């Protein structure tokens, strides 16, 4: 049976389409575009806005000329996406949206990210600073009598050290764990 596609829609999204019949379907589509929607005079020669393939079931808006010889992305036959997706573990699926071209496929993509490196430094500084502040504040605790002595800069810094050390350590640890979470969510299995 000869392939007859509805000329209003993209043949790739109609039943009976196969990549082998690409040339025929392309010709069909070109013919359909020329026949169904006449071009507006002002839009002649205008380049196509993007290479995004047309949505299924949606009629074409205008008869914008399509350059037939240029290999467009939309002309490439669709690969079965199900097999691709099932090969990737669940955790790695989450990174699909954030993938950028040029990123390495294996390992963690942010190994050389200066922002992440800065966050690691901040996390370590917070933990170490919290421990040092608390240790120093405990050390000078008995250096002076707590009764009847006025507030000095040392006692102010000491109480600040006590107040800040616990949140500093907590946030530092949470930051480090959060960075590990980020690594875990952007991890992809090596090919």
């Amino acid at each position, binding site marked *: 049976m000869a392939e007859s596609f509805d000329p209003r829609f993209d043949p790739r999204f109609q039943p009976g389409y196969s990549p082998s019949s690409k040339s025929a379907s392309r010709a069909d589509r070109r013919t359909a575009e020329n026949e169904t929607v006449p071009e507006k005079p002002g839009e002649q020669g205008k380049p196509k806005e993007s290479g995004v393939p047309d949505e299924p079931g949606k009629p074409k808006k205008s008869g914008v000329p399509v350059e037939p010889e240029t290999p467009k992305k939309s002309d490439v036959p669709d690969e079965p996406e*199900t097999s691709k*997706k*099932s090969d990737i*573990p*669940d*955790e*790695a*699926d*989450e990174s699909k949206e954030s993938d950028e071209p040029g990123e390495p496929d294996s390992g*963690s993509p942010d190994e050389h990210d200066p922002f992440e490196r800065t966050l690691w430094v901040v996390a370590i500084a917070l933990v170490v600073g*919290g*421990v040092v502040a*608390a*240790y120093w504040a*405990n050390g000078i605790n008995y250096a002076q009598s707590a009764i009847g002595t006025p507030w000095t800069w040392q006692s102010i810094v000491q109480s600040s050290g006590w107040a800040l*050390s*616990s949140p500093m*350590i*907590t946030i530092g*640890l*949470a930051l480090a*764990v959060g960075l*590990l*979470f980020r*690594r*875990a*969510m952007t*991890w992809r*299995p*090596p090919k």
Partner: protein
Amino acid sequence: MRKRNPWIGLLWGIGIALVAGGYAANFWLQTFYYPPPGTPSPGPVVVFLQDLADNFVSPSLYVGFGTIAGLLFLHARSRKRTKKSVDSHG
């Protein structure tokens, strides 16, 4: 065989180690409370470790439980995605 995410395993280890370590440090600190009269000072190293444990007990318990909760959220999300993809393809 399906490859496991090594970072998830590492995070599970860290979460459990933080909770267990924080609890153990708190337990160890309690052995120094109310010493009998005449007990000598434990020495500067132990005093430093006491300070360290005293500072780490609460943060490590918070972050450890937070890590485990975050991992459970992550597993729930990936399970939901897997189920959704199976439903849409099957």
